[in-house]
């Protein structure tokens, strides 16, 4: 069997051995339910409290602002639905903006006693758990949503955020770093903008700011006060912790309704028996994140980008080269289809992912690449390469040795040739 090279750290990461060791006692020895009052439960509770402290330290927040759950998908659902559901279950607090007609169906108006739907601003490049949650709220007529465009570099522009804000805007949700192209959004600036606007707004009309920080946790400053966020989501399995556990940071005073009932766990915000092993693992993993790893990974990633762009003709990097996560590279190779590239690399023992339609379950190309304005020729020929703390230089060298041959072979098969960009045959209908 060939030596395997993992370059898909954005998809998931292996457990750090120290994290595994920290978790082990909570499965068979200190296995108690952390909600139980007896010794068994209290032993588990200690692990829970320690983990909560570790997360609070990482975010620079209070322990009671840390809500453990099953992962960022749940966190993002809670953040967005929680804010909206709270508004709908509260007495009418928002007046209809002048000149605007009610968007609330007549049959609901009496129940809700309000005339405008709460407004959410998000971006077109969010992860599906944010986009689908927003669409769900639109379909159930609970909210109206603006999906901001990104520029050609894959960045949300602060001026666009400002333009989109209305009187009935209640929530802005912009991801910290995009999972496909790694672009880093201007979260601090948006945080400042929201604070500025809230100064002239009454408490009941405040705008809350949420960010999906799943990809950013390893690499970027996540201090919640520097960022100016009220809600922030992370998943342990992206930073060498276990799968199935995550956190939603909720700033004290944020009006939010729980979406999972069945107990008063997590300050009555998220019912369910504590996944104590997972939570302890998350705490340990987050406490191990350091800037030195980010530096080392960036060097290797830069070598990879350099090598690809220099040695493979007609290759391009997607997304901002500078405002980008230290571990991310996303390329297009016109003439070589993305899923084929991924399979060919997989057969050589190298794992990457692709934004091409062929590899997706609904046969649509990545919505992020589409939002970037990439033509089909680029969207269908893209691969994402993401490094991690276990990536070494030999792996990068091996990747740089194999990829050019893969691209050349696939371009020959498609008739696009190796060197010059040959126009693909015209559209003949699917």
């Amino acid at each position: 069997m060939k030596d395997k090279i993992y370059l898909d750290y954005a998809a998931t990461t292996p457990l750090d051995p120290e994290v595994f060791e920290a978790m082990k006692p909570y499965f068979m020895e200190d296995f108690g339910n952390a909600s139980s009052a007896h010794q068994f439960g209290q032993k588990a509770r200690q692990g829970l409290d320690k983990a909560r402290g570790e997360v609070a330290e990482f975010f620079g927040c209070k322990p009671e602002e840390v809500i453990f759950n099953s992962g960022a998908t749940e966190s993002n659902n809670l953040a967005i639905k929680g804010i909206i559901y709270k508004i709908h279950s509260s007495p009418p607090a928002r007046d209809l903006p002048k000149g605007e007609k009610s968007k609330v169906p007549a049959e609901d108006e009496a129940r809700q006693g309000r005339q405008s739907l709460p407004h959410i601003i998000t971006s077109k490049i969010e992860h599906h758990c944010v986009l689908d949650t927003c669409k769900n709220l639109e379909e159930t007529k609970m909210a109206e949503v603006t999906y901001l465009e990104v520029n050609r570099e894959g960045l949300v522009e602060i001026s666009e955020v400002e333009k989109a804000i209305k009187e009935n805007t209640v929530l802005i949700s912009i991801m910290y770093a995009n999972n496909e192209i790694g672009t880093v959004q201007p979260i601090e600036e948006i945080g400042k903008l929201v604070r500025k606007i809230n100064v002239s707004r009454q408490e009941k009309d405040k705008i809350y700011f949420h960010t999906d920080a799943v990809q950013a946790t390893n690499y970027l400053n996540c201090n919640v006060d520097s960022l100016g966020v009220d809600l922030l989501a992370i998943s342990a399995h992206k930073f060498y912790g276990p799968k199935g556990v995550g956190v939603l940071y909720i700033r004290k005073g944020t009006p939010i309704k729980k979406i999972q009932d069945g107990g008063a766990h997590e300050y009555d915000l998220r019912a369910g028996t504590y996944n104590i092993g997972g939570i302890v693992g998350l705490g340990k993993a987050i406490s191990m994140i350091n800037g030195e790893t980010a530096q080392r990974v960036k060097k290797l990633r830069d070598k990879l980008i350099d090598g690809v762009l220099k040695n493979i003709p007609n290759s391009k990097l997607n997304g901002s080269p500078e405002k980008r996560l230290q571990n991310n590279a996303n390329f297009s190779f016109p003439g070589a289809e993305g899923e084929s590239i991924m399979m060919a690399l997989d057969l050589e023992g190298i794992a990457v992912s692709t934004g091409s339609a062929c590899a997706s379950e609904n046969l649509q190309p990545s919505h992020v690449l589409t939002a970037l304005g990439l033509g089909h020729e680029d969207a269908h020929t893209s691969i994402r390469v993401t490094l991690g703390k276990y990536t070494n230089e030999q792996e990068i060298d091996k990747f740089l040795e194999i990829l050019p041959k893969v691209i050349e072979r696939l371009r020959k098969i498609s008739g696009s040739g190796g060197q010059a960009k040959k126009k693909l045959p015209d559209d003949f209908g699917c």
Partner: protein
Amino acid sequence: MYSKKVVEQFLHPKNMGFIKDADGVGKVGNIVCGDQMTLYIKVKNKKGKNIIDDIKFESFGCAAAIATSSMITEMAKGKEIGEAMKLKRDDVAEELGGLPPIKMHCSNMAAQALHKAIEDYKNKLKSSR
């Protein structure tokens, strides 16, 4: 995800390339869906029968697309035109040891490309008479 035969065809496709003076060309797919195939055939009359003497393909698409293109050229080469026309997507998928359901449309494209190439050949014959 893929059978051994699909992997084999993907790694070592047969009949890759194009034919300059092809007797029939069949193109299917488009860059919008990310799948595009072109089949070229050369037909010779042997003992009164029109035989696909040479066949080549170009394929821009996933591993399944490349494998099905390659496989159909192998299946069609040497066949009489009428026989080749009968080849269906299920024949290709079967020969490959099966395809994941979501990839069956690739084998459909391969069969379509072949039929189009044969139709093109027939049309060219008509217009040359």
